[in-house]
């Protein structure tokens, strides 16, 4: 199937720095796509190009196989990271205005507005001015104006920042529902938890370049490094001896009589070999593989690229 969005060797330069360098990837239809990267990696620049707010210096972006043009604007919905609304305008006026700028007729815009306000239980707020609304309420309005024209492609820049947990959950459910109804969602974030939970595919940008791309499952599989966690009761000494040949102890933790060891299998040692060795003498409570989280992968990839290891606070949640 033709991807809904194809980014082809897009580069963008601002006066003194390169914001995007030959970035290419595809976004499959009806998927949730995560655009990841530390601050300043070029995510917002790329999003602005997809929204036709700016144009690429070189390269091109295809929407359903067509080169981006102004007719696509009405098929895309965009929630910027820095959000705002006209403070003095009433909620209804605001939603109508922005919906009609997206090409909806007055009648259609009115109908959809009522639908969303009912859904979010906000009918009583239509005549209020934005400045009279609570922050959470404003965010709901902001979300409504993003999706009111039923965009085929929804671009959300840090959608959960600034939302309280209840609203964040509400938005999360809406995103999934929209996806199920056939919309494609691109969302940019550095909240890795939500990436694991929501995204099908990701692309990781760092320093203006794409450094990783693929499905979340495959990437996590590719980055797994034979690490297991085993919890047991019994003699620690004997357990360590049993490990000795085929596995390396990374971390150990003891609480009361329960020991939790994190180990990496060496050479071709299989988890079963380890279990066979310790089973006769120890009581095994749990055993599981540690698959690296997206957060670990993110940190590892970005630090590798930067040529330094260790954590970088800029992308921890």
């Amino acid at each position, binding site marked *: 199937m033709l991807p809904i969005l194809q980014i082809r060797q897009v580069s963008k330069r601002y006066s003194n720095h390169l914001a995007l360098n030959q970035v290419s990837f595809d976004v499959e239809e009806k998927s949730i796509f995560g655009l990841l990267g530390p601050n300043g990696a070029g995510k917002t620049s790329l999003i602005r190009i997809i929204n036709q707010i700016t144009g690429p210096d070189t390269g091109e972006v295809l929407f359903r196989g067509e080169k981006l043009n102004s007719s696509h604007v009405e098929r895309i919905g965009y929630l910027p990271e820095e*959000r705002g*609304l006209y403070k003095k305008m009433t909620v209804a006026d605001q939603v109508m*205005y922005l919906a009609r700028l997206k090409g909806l007729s007055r009648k259609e815009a009115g109908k959809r507005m009522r639908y969303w306000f009912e859904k979010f239980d906000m009918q009583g707020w239509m005549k209020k001015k934005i400045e009279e609304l609570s922050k959470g309420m404003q965010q709901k309005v902001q979300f409504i104006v993003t999706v009111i024209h039923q965009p085929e492609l929804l671009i959300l820049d840090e959608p959960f920042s600034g939302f309280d947990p209840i609203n964040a959950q509400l938005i999360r459910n809406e995103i999934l529902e929209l996806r199920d109804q056939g919309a494609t969602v691109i969302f940019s974030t550095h909240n890795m938890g939500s990436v694991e939970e929501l995204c099908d595919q990701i692309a990781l940008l760092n320093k203006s370049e794409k450094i990783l791309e693929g499905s979340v499952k495959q990437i996590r599989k590719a980055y797994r490094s034979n690490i297991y966690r085993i919890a047991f009761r019994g003699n620690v000494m004997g357990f360590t001896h049993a490990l000795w040949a085929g596995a390396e102890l990374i971390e150990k933790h003891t609480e009361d009589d329960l020991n939790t060891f994190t180990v990496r299998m060496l050479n071709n040692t299989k988890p079963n070999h380890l279990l066979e060795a310790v089973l006769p003498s120890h009581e095994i409570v749990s055993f599981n593989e540690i698959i690296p989280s997206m957060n670990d992968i993110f940190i590892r990839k970005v630090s590798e690229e930067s040529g330094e290891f260790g954590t970088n606070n800029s992308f921890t949640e």
Partner: protein
Amino acid sequence: MNKIILIIGREIKSKLYNRTFIIMTILAPLLITGFMAFLIRMSQSDKTEQRVLVLDESGLFKGKLAGNDYVSISYTSESLDAAVESFSDRQYTCLLWVSPTIVEGGAGASKLFYRKSPGFGFQTYIRDQMEKLIYEYKLRANNIDPDVIVNSKTSVKLILEKVNEKGGTEEQSNFGFFGFINGALMFMFIIMYGMMVFRSVMEEKTNRIVEVIVSSVKPFQLMLGKIIGVAVLGIIQFLIMGVITLVLTTLLSTLFLKDIKIQLKAFEAQQELVKKHGTNINLQNLEKFDDKLQVFEVLQKIEKIDFTEVFLCFILYFVGGYLFYSSIMAAIGSAVDSEADSQQFITPVILPMMVGYFISTKTMIDPDAGIVFWGSMIPFTSPIVMMSRITSGVPLWEIVLSLSFLFLSFVLTTWLAGKIYRTGILMYGKKTSWRELGRWLFYK
């Protein structure tokens, strides 16, 4: 196109329902006409009733001082002390004492005693009569008939007729002050509406709503919609203000200027008579308007102004000048994060307008000076300067040429402004310099 109309609509609606805007629109003409009425009222003589008791020791004025509707005059010959003591008990408002040596003049030759201060108009009224009587007395003492002097005085009035290219002539009002007011109003309005565009752009930027909007419309469309919206708003405001002012001034002028207009009619009829018959007619029978001549002149000048032309030009130059400057203001509004940062950009923009304003003061003295001509051609100053010289008879080709310059440069400034605007609205937290603005012009 449809989207621009939506933007224009929002812009108008957001301001039109704004309380300050409504109050401004109604209050400004009220204040202006009220102020004018106040000035006119102040200039007219005071209407408090004055009962004057005259103690004339010179014998020069007895029975000769004239009263009017508000001033009544009585004479007495009692002693000064007695009169001073008792005049107010006898219901007189003031006592005029004239010394026997009044003809020689000097300070203290005449005194006015009062309880309640007599107005300046009343003082002038009495003093003028006394001076005239002394003057006539002195002429007679030298065997000169005062009528001879009066008849030999001729006031000369220059009527200005501009000769146009075809050799025809047209009478000009050449009312320099009116022109200056026009220029000043233009200056005010362009700044006012220019700032409105500036604020509106900055508001969207600091609100952060702009990114949502430019994902639906092109930044240039947004800027243009905003500029046109405020222009439409300005014209609506103009019309409302114009109608209110017109109604008020008609009302006030029938109230305050009725007498003077009747007098003006009589004066004009009289002038016609003199033109027809020469000075042969008996001047004694003519009413004298010497003290009103200046007022008449102003009224006649006002009557000669072609208000339709002035109004039309005002609208055209306002639209042109506004578009020219507001696109620059929009670019500046997009480049700054707060009003405090904007000074360095706004000052150089207002400067040429100030120059235009100063040139328009020059127009009052010398409407055909070279600098005035060039000022009315160069788009930076032309709206202000051209309006200031409009009543001195500007050939049509000059107006057409200057308007074409203005509208062409508007296209240029808007195009440049659009390029700056596009980049500026998405730039945050960076103090912008002129050099930076220049660089934005070349972004793709």
